[in-house]
């Protein structure tokens, strides 16, 4: 997916709270915060658990798997830097751990994407950051790779 690697688009602007997420991503690891007090998995990164307001959150390796809650094939992007990548797919991924994150689906024919499709993370370098994008679970080696880390 070389067209993503060369995109001139806005990248993340990490905060002191979110920095570990991006640091782990740069090493190919998908991590989430988990609340020490109530056990909730949390995304996006926060200073306090949105369930119980505990400030005691610990970064943990997560499965990197989920299902497509919804998706959209983007023909006219909101940022001009994404034009060269059109049409591309933005999706909501309901992670196995519970939270939902927005991401990009890659390495998948446009007309094969379905709500409920199982997906696995694949890190794609965009500018200075490794972004956790997703690919269909059944059709790739990602399944084995993710399984082997569990």
């Amino acid at each position: 997916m070389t067209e993503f690697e060369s995109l001139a688009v806005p990248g993340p602007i990490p905060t002191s709270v979110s920095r570990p997420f991006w640091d782990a991503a740069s090493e190919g690891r998908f991590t989430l915060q988990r609340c020490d007090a109530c056990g909730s998995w949390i995304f996006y990164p926060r200073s306090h658990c949105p369930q119980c307001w505990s400030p005691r959150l610990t970064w943990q390796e997560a499965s990197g798997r989920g299902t497509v809650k919804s998706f959209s094939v983007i023909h006219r992007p909101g940022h001009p830097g994404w034009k060269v990548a059109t049409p591309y797919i933005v999706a909501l991924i309901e992670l196995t751990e519970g939270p939902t994150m927005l991401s990009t689906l890659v390495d998948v024919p446009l007309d094969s994407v379905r709500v409920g499709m199982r997906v696995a993370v694949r890190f794609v370098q965009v500018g200075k950051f490794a972004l956790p994008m997703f690919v269909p679970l059944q059709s790739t080696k990602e399944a084995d790779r993710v399984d082997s880390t569990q």
Partner: protein
Amino acid sequence: MAGRSLGAIAGIGELKPVRRTQGATTLGLIAETVRLAVEDAGLDKDAIDGLLVGPQVGETPQHVPATVAEYLGIQPRMANVVDLGGASGAGMVWRAAAAISAGMCDAVVCVLANTREDEVSRSPNRNPIREFDVPFGASGANISYALPMQRHMAEYGSTPAQFARIAAAARDNAQLNPLAIFYGHPASVDDVLASPIIASPLHLYEIVMPVAGGEAVVVVSAERARGLKHPAVHLLGAGEKVTHRAISQAPSLTSGPLKPAMQQALAQAGVTADAMSLLSFYDCYTIMVAMTIEDAGLCAAGGFGRWIEEHSLGYDGDFPLNTHGGQLGFGQPDLAGGMTHVVEAVRQLRHDAGVRQIRNAQLALVTGNGATVSEATALVLGADA
């Protein structure tokens, strides 16, 4: 009149929307819109002692109420920003009534207006959306409505033609509103389906056209409204709910915060949605209207498509919906777009809507929606008894 009057809308002001402005200032458009609304109310400038305005990221990042008040030459006893996106207009109306009931002021002007230059400045956001959505190619509002729409289709089997019907009905209604940006430009269901896909499953004609404009209302107490220029339009119920900011954090993709907001507003007024003379539903996208029809309880969840096939949505139909054309037909003057739904309800309920007047209009359900189906305000408005 159903329920007790919580306050009255005594005047309205509206600018004809335009695609582009050149050299106009937001403050200047606000001033003109306010002048129209206060004149329409039959009040003097000096009677205005409350001011509600929207946020302005560009010209006036801070101290917005004081800047606007100074520009208008008024010295309000209550001044505030209402920052609820497309729900700001409806959100202003109950806040104005609440401030008056609390004895803080007597006559509140609620105003939203925007310019639209060729140069569109980029958002200075440093929020979680900027960090976790934008880097994945999810800039702009379209995606946040395409995702609920795709989910609705997958969950309930709703079809592109059913959504297109909402856009076509809005264009139909706009043919009776000379102010509307699409006046003289109707669009059929086939036209909507033939327009380009922007972010699937959204077609171009299912998305509002951005315009410049201004909308204002004047809110006073029911007592104060007696004897003014026009029959009062009463606030009978209000509800508000904020559930999230980014679409990934939405508790549901197919039912929104308008559901509890409308339930509260309708319960306070002691009425049900099917008793409305006018449904004045916030319509930034077709999916927003579909969700609102379902969340209002007009049909079961997932049933909007059949519901709109079974009903007529024009001023002379059995369920008049957005008789001004909605924002899909009128154009969306930024945050003022939400206020168009209030202004049209006032026109209908004081029987001042001309060729598109709903016969014996008594009740309207007005909704506002902001961000990514995040911020919701609902109002029940009633005609003067």
